[in-house]
């Protein structure tokens, strides 16, 4: 298949499991699944106790679905997906992709090709702050909150990432097994925990410039960053 100006052998993507945690995303989930399924045949969707038609839409697709009977938060959904990945040893890599339609499949493909070509890298995380063009797309207030969050995580968690909360990641099995099992933060604070665990690990990682589509109204609110900061301060989980 020819995409991104490169000829890609889609069979080489059999080693990848694409993990989509979804909660009340009936408007976006079908588009997201359809766009990923063009390139990847192994997709795992975790329905995190949705109360709308998200589960029905997922069940109509041919892909694997695990359902949390109650809503726990994205961190818990990722944790369930990572447990599943560890059990199924035929996959070498796992990629996490948001269900709200903010991520682009082109970025995912680029990151997948990058991690396959660089054998030393165990993890690639998307970043909105590596290129000026992608930075400009971030709404003004959100941009500065993300910059503040980055400083906060750099100081208190020794995080080495430029983008504090980016859900687009491609991870090798070794880093998941040794660092990312047992995510303790169930809500959005899991992103800080993942950054912290990757940063303090011995595994090599890199960031990749990606673009985020902010047209979706269901995405995380800016005020939720306050919740995350308070959770990080008053929780002894790391």
């Amino acid at each position, binding site marked *: 298949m020819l995409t991104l100006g490169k000829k890609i052998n889609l069979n080489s993507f059999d080693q990848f*499991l694409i993990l989509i945690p979804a909660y009340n995303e009936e408007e976006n989930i079908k588009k997201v699944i359809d766009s990923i399924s063009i390139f990847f045949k*192994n997709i795992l969707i*975790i329905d995190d106790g949705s109360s709308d038609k998200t589960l029905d839409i997922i*069940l109509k697709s*041919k*892909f*694997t*679905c*695990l*359902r*949390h*009977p*109650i809503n*726990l938060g994205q961190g*818990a959904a990722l*944790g*369930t997906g990572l*447990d*599943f990945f560890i*059990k*199924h*040893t*035929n*996959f070498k890599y796992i990629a996490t992709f948001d269900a709200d339609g903010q991520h682009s499949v082109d970025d995912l493909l680029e990151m997948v090709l990058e991690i396959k070509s660089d054998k030393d890298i165990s993890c690639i995380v998307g970043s909105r702050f590596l290129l000026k063009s992608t930075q400009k797309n971030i709404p003004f207030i959100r941009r500065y909150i993300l910059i503040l969050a980055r400083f906060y995580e750099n100081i208190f968690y020794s995080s080495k990432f430029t983008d504090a909360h980016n859900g687009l990641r491609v991870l090798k099995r070794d880093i998941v097994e040794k660092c990312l099992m047992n995510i*303790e933060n*169930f809500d959005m604070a899991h992103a800080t925990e993942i950054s912290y665990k990757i940063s303090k690990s011995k595994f090599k990682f890199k960031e990749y410039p990606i673009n985020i589509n902010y047209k979706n109204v269901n995405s995380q609110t800016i005020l939720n960053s306050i919740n995350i900061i308070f959770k990080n301060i008053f*929780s*002894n989980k790391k």
Partner: protein
Amino acid sequence: MTIYAKTIFFIIIFLIYSLTYIFERNNSTRAIQKILITSLIIMMIAVIIAPSFFVFGSANLLGVGRGPDAVLYLYIIVSLAINFILFRKIAEAESRITKLTKWIALNINNKNSNDFLN
């Protein structure tokens, strides 16, 4: 309130925080919590029976000066302790619910999950 009394006040709060948060919850910490709560109940009963002796006596001992102030400080310490203990208990309950929910998702509530098995 003297500087010594203030120091004791903050040490008590710090100790309560340490007991409920820093140490792992095991049988020993649970036993200490029970001893603290029982002591508190005995103190409360004693205060009702002989207020002048216990309230004003403890106020003088801590250098608070007035009995009602001592009661206020005691109330702050107790309510903080209850907050910390409840917060910890809620966090533990959440953790258990998450483990259960994840187990249900992985073992019962799934579709096509065996397709990936080797």
